[in-house]
């Protein structure tokens, strides 16, 4: 069961690496900010942070300073990715709305404060060992970082529901409408994963590795996310045909 769970997480890392690199290549051609933000978020959160964090857990058996350094580097990279995701949600979905700018600033500040709290309190090490937490910083940090994918997922689902209506009168392509839904699912799954992590920390104090059910839940979410991300960026011919030929809803009179 643990092997299957690890496989799910690995699949998610590979999907993030491949799609993130391709979005970065897309940015190289378009030079548009949203592509850069999305590439940074996908690569940092989905691949680099995981890779560094896991390396710290698996490879470093020695002094806690070294493990702490690995964890800090991984967590800092993850924070950069989440800040990029927050900026993406603001610039892409709500560029003209003042409240969205305020929300983006607040979330960025919360992520930074949480990271500082985790480092100063020493609770940072609880990500790489099995000792239960002894303060609020870890769940607070997880919640602050989890807010980034949560916001983007909500925006994707809202846009999807609008585009479904536009599709009825030919103002949106079915493939693009579906892509918005898939990105919503791909980003919504990690958001749920963060919720599971926060709940687990609050109940048991330890990381998800302490319980197979928790690890399996997050692994399942990671697998769904990887499949959605891959389908969104590399839609197979048969899938595209199915989307284009599927009868759309009739316009309301």
């Amino acid at each position, binding site marked *: 069961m643990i092997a299957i769970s690890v496989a799910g997480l690995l699949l998610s890392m590979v999907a993030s690496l491949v799609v993130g690199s391709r979005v970065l290549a*897309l940015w190289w051609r378009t030079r548009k900010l949203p592509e850069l933000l999305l590439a940074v978020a996908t690569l940092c959160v989905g691949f680099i942070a995981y890779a560094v964090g896991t390396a710290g857990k698996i490879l470093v058996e020695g002094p806690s300073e070294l493990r702490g350094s690995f964890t800090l580097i991984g967590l800092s990279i993850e924070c950069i990715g989440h800040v990029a995701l927050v900026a993406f949600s603001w610039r892409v979905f709500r560029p003209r709305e003042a409240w969205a700018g305020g929300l983006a600033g607040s979330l960025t500040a919360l992520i930074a404060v949480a990271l500082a709290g985790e480092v100063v309190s020493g609770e940072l090490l609880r990500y790489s060992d099995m000792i239960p937490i002894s303060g609020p910083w870890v769940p607070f940090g997880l919640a602050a970082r989890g807010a980034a994918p949560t916001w983007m997922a909500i925006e994707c689902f809202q846009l999807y529901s609008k*585009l479904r209506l536009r599709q009825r009168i030919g103002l949106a*392509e079915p493939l693009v409408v579906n*892509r918005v839904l898939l990105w919503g699912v791909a980003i919504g799954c990690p958001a749920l994963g963060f919720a599971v992590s926060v709940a687990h920390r609050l109940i048991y104090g330890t990381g998800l590795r302490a319980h197979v059910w928790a690890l399996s839940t997050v692994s399942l979410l990671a697998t769904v996310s990887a499949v959605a991300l891959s389908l969104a960026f590399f839609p*197979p011919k048969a899938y595209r045909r199915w989307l284009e030929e599927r009868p759309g809803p009739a316009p309301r009179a």
Partner: protein
Amino acid sequence: MSKLEARGTVRLVLRDVGLDPSSVTPRQMAVVIERLLGAALSKRKVESAAELCQALMRELEQIGANRVEHHEDTAYDLFERLESDGTRRGRS
């Protein structure tokens, strides 16, 4: 139908197809007028709804012709671009 009612009708029709009055483009508005507004006006017992829509279309064309279209990159535009070149080429 009063100005307020007319405005409300247009807003409702736009909402029904997921469009925002503050960001609707002339092209989107043309599709809405052509495909939905006539029916919405008829439903509200507006006489000669078809002629009214034709007049609106003419005005819209003029607005479109006089307006320098500065294309704003929307969320839809971004998601349209977010696809592998390989699958995009296979599509075209």
